[in-house]
């Protein structure tokens, strides 16, 4: 086959004529992210995460067969941002609670989140309540995690040629439906392949969903439980002016605070340059000084959280959302897909341990009111920085703080940034 010359971001590249752009770019050392694309298969063009520009016009990269003289724009600021935005759209459009997902670590979408450096989403989370279908023979389909890439629609067929999955409905209600009769024909191996090609945790095989141990999964880099030593706090600021830090945990689990303490003896070094004000660590309940930086764990699930958060905004120069709950609601936001009334009744009136007419939904002027859903902090006050993770690694948290307070440069190693 003929060799052709083309350009990526101004750089001259070569490949075989008619080669798919994603592969051709890879050959030439340029990474174009994809979620729906398969090597050597007809392009689907559904996820759009490979959007690039060809001769100035934007198009999905996976749909292009490279030809002589083509001029591609891949890693321009505009296209990098557009691709990141699409991935963010996927995160907000479904419910992607990675810490409670069976596919975590084997999930292409999650991995792409790391690769593309997603710290938070610019879009509001939509919190949908779609079907989790366990009726099929071998497979469980969790619609909440589906990004409708149609890989399964195209790839999973029975031996006699029938499709097993197909899109149903339209518009914002589009979901991938499963044909029970055809699914029953799939062998265990075929079903496992369906799970494997699913770029998210939408298709799971019963009894196999957590078969592969964490730490040995496709996108795992560090071993499970491996600790990363804390980088020594060498800070040259010795003029005696300690920076003042405040922390709080709103609707969170205190896990981020535990991680904060994971610096161990490093904390002693830190205390030479910083001072804690209002924080569970010092047990100071009220701000007694204006602070340089406030670290917020957890989102807002009740009126008290909002009050505390607003007080932090007022008393801190810089606010940082630490961990997933603070950034978008995290695990507590699991309840956002269920009406509040159902949640409260289940918890206080209809639970196994409650007796008829003996319990009530707590309600008193002294206790905060529960909000209709869990809100991310940046929907309440302006947040300056986001540190992702569940929880973020101690190194990561303190590197960011040091950078903000003392302009210290930092780099984060891949295992420090991955949390599954």
């Amino acid at each position, binding site marked *: 086959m003929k060799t052709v010359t083309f350009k990526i971001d101004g750089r001259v590249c070569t490949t075989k004529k008619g080669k798919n752009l994603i592969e051709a770019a890879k050959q030439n050392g340029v990474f174009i992210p994809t979620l729906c694309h398969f090597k050597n298969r007809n392009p689907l063009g559904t996820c759009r995460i490979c959007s690039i520009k060809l001769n100035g016009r934007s198009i999905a990269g996976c749909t292009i067969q490279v030809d002589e003289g083509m001029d591609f724009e891949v890693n321009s600021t505009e*296209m990098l941002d557009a691709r990141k935005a699409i991935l963010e759209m996927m995160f*907000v459009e479904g419910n992607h609670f990675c810490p409670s997902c069976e596919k975590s670590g084997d999930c292409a979408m999650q991995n792409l989140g790391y690769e593309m450096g997603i710290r938070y989403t610019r879009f509001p989370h939509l919190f949908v309540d779609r079907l989790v279908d366990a009726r099929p023979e071998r497979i469980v389909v969790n619609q909440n995690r589906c990004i409708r890439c*149609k890989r399964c629609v195209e790839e999973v067929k029975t031996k006699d040629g029938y499709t097993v999955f197909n899109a*149903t409905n*339209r518009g914002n209600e589009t979901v991938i439906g499963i044909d029970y009769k055809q699914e029953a024909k799939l062998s265990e191996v075929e079903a496992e392949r369906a799970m494997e090609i699913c770029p998210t945790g939408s298709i799971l095989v019963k009894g196999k969903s957590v078969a592969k141990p964490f730490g040995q999964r496709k996108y795992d880099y560090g071993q499970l439980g491996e600790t990363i030593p804390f980088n020594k706090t060498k800070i040259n600021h010795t003029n005696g002016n300690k920076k003042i830090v405040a922390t709080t945990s709103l609707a969170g689990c205190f896990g981020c605070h535990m991680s904060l303490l994971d610096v161990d003896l490093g904390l002693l070094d830190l205390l030479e340059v910083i001072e804690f004000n209002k924080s569970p660590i010092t047990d100071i309940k009220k701000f007694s000084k204006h602070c340089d930086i406030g670290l917020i764990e957890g989102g807002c699930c009740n009126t008290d959280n909002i009050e505390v958060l607003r007080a932090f905004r007022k008393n801190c120069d810089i606010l940082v959302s630490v961990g997933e709950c603070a950034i978008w609601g995290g695990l507590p936001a699991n309840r956002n897909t269920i009406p509040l009334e159902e949640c409260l009744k289940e918890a206080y009136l209809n639970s196994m341990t409650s007796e008829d007419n003996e319990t009530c939904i707590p309600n008193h002027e002294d206790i905060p009111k529960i909000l209709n859903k869990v809100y991310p902090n940046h929907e*309440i006050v302006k947040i300056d920085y986001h540190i992702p993770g569940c929880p973020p690694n101690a190194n990561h948290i303190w590197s960011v703080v040091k950078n903000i307070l003392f302009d210290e440069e930092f780099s984060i190693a891949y295992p420090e940034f991955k949390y599954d």
Partner: protein
Amino acid sequence: MERTHLLNLLWNQQNAQGFISQSAITEIAKLLKISTIEVEGVITFYHFFHQKPTGKYIIYLNNSIISEFKGFREVKTTFEKETGCVFGKYDNNPLFSLFETSCIGLSDQEPAALINFYPFTDLTPEKVISIIKDLKNNIPIKTIADNPKSKIQYIPEDDKTVFFKDYTPGNSINKLKENNADSILKTIADVNLKGRGGAFFPTALKWQACKKNSAKTKYIICNADEGEPGTFKDKILLMEFPDLVIEGMIIAAFVVGAKEGIIYLRAEYKYLLPKLKETIHNFYNNNYLGDKILGINNFTFNLKIQLGAGAYVCGEETALIESLEGKRGEPRIRKYFPTDVGYLGKPTIVNNVETFANAARIIELGADYFKNIGTEKSKGTKLISVSGDVAKPGIYEIEWGMTVKELLQLCQATAPNYVQITGPSGECINETEFNRKICNEDLTCGGAIMVFNKFRGIIKILENFTKFFRSESCGVCTPCRAGNQILFEKIKKLKKGLCTSTDLQEIKDWGNIMKLTSRCGLGKTASNTFSTATEKFSDYFKFKILSENENQNVEFDMESAIQDFDSIIKDNHH
């Protein structure tokens, strides 16, 4: 049986049973040798197919923005009150089922509804009461349905009219005898005819590309899936001059060497079917269709009609082809043009109704006729559907180059403030742009102009449009499917009065991402009106947004956030 029959098989079931039952699905799947989920995928894509039993009368009430401003709400509640049914619910009422539907091409006679696909126009609560009473009394629906008027409001001077002038069937295709494919193509190219569906792709180029293809089987498809809200010009052509449209198709077939043609008619226009069928029948009788047309050797062309089933996106040519093939109407990726790989993989021409009619007139009248009509680059006339706050809504055949102002005067617009060009997927203009000329050089217009006066809430218009795109997106690609939902969140925020200038900037930025990355024209254009409206009507939006506050609190509606809790506590203490 071929997959292409699927839509008709489903229509048969829908018409006979009122819905498509699980057993019918299994049977159809067996017949076509496909899995049942594929059949369900198709059923659920089109909103005129139902999987649950419906009443004897299915009422589809149009919820377009024009309808909304002309009394949609009152009409809707009257329907619910009189029938005892709820819109969008399958409530097992043996007589009635109520559904909302997108624009049904009756914007000049709103509010309008289809009852068992018979049109009912200019609805008022009183009229609804009488309709429901008649239906309950078993009066045949045919006798009480309205005959939608063709409100042709304006035609240019005699020597400048293209569409609405005297017409003798056969005048146009008779010219084929003295012409060959190349001379016809040249005439079309001389007039610079461009696709009238709104994309304005040069027709001669399209035909040329298809002609060049050496494949034996080729298809001519007429896109009569006029779904863009506010547009009803194709309907008028199909009502008044169906022959002209068919002649255009025959000419196209002659040029490219196609033997088969299909008119893809949207189900909303089902009431045009009898007349269309009759016209086709007459064409066969006159040897204008069939074998050896007009005695020309080897010129065979057969024509049939395929009814759609309710999906705006099927107006996109590749989605239309998918639909014809009995699939979900999902636009194809832009790997091939339909002129190379189209219907059933064969070279296919898809043109709009108006394009075919115009082509027929060009061949009939000759290229010279068009020389002095229109502007330098847009020759001839354009059909415009005018609706909204005007005294004379209806169809206007305007010479290309007419200003918006002139048109607004012709249709007697009252205090026009916001004018939507082409429909929701087009663009909006404000007062300062009323001097712009309607032509390809300046303001392109696919065929609809919606006029809103200064008393109409712009957010309401944008909300209607965004909702429309949210449900009419085919759902395949992320930016369009998710993007429209996300933009709708902004509408909600705007309505609550919680937006700041940051939000307006985000609307623009996010809209731009949809435009950059969507798969087809629907997603690429869906955000356009919303993002430009915030700029063009900045005075209006100034009063709708809050100034950024100094203490860096983001605007938050605490009251509505605790409303649920308060009402639960209240309910549980009673």
